[in-house]
């Protein structure tokens, strides 16, 4: 644990980061910036896992391994999402959400 920092302060930082991600996901209209907002959300959840692990159950490592697995899933998600975005760009020449309104032909 960090000396002199109460547990709740870190949780508040990660909460604010989570809701910034949610707000970005709602306001943005570009696929890549929406992906960035998703990364913010995932990252704030990772902070939560690590902090709960370190402050409340320091004898175990569950939060640590959960965070490693979340990071790996974020990498997989980003690679598939970017492949999809590039495919959409090839088909529609744009990655704005409003331009991509039909699914086939």
């Amino acid at each position, binding site marked *: 644990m960090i000396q002199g*920092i109460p547990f709740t302060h870190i949780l508040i930082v990660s909460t604010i980061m989570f809701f910034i991600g949610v707000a970005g996901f709602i306001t943005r209209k570009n696929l890549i910036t929406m992906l960035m907002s998703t990364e913010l959300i995932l990252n704030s959840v990772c902070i939560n896992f690590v902090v709960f692990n370190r402050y409340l159950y320091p004898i175990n490592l569950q939060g640590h391994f959960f965070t490693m697995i979340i990071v790996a899933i974020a990498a997989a998600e980003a690679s598939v999402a970017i492949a999809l975005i*590039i495919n959409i760009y090839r088909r529609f020449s744009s990655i704005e959400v409003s331009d991509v309104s039909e699914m086939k032909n």
Partner: protein
Amino acid sequence: MATNVIMFYLFSAVIIIFALLSITTRRILRAAVYLLFVLVATAGIYFMLQYQFLAAVQLTLYAGGIVVLIIFSILLTHQINNKFEVPGVGKILLGAGVAIAGAALTIPAILSYPFPAVAQHALDVNMQTIGIGLLHTGKNGYALPFEVISILLLASMIGAIVIAKKGK
């Protein structure tokens, strides 16, 4: 004021300010660079919590891998000089309203919940503990999630190649 307290609030300020900038800036490449700052500050918090391996994973995978991937895809799909148009007032109000309402519900709940005090001594997290934990099948072992995540990474790699390759 102790140094680590100052460091923690510095990292928190960097996280919040750059996350806000990352979702409000009108140039997409800047949004990616602000996201990079947020991820690096998160790695700093992991370092302060003494999970050095996790911080290294965060730096290499997130800051080194995902941000570079995002920047490559930006370069492939955008004119860099274009600015986004400002989203409509309704969208901004909706996003800010949802975020503020959610935070207003969550933060008082966090502050008022009586978390139990910590009494246990902390475990020293070295590479040996992590390696045994990842490959152990008994109690406190994570062999199954480790194998499942390997299959997931393989599947997503093949899927990304199949999706993104040129048509036949």
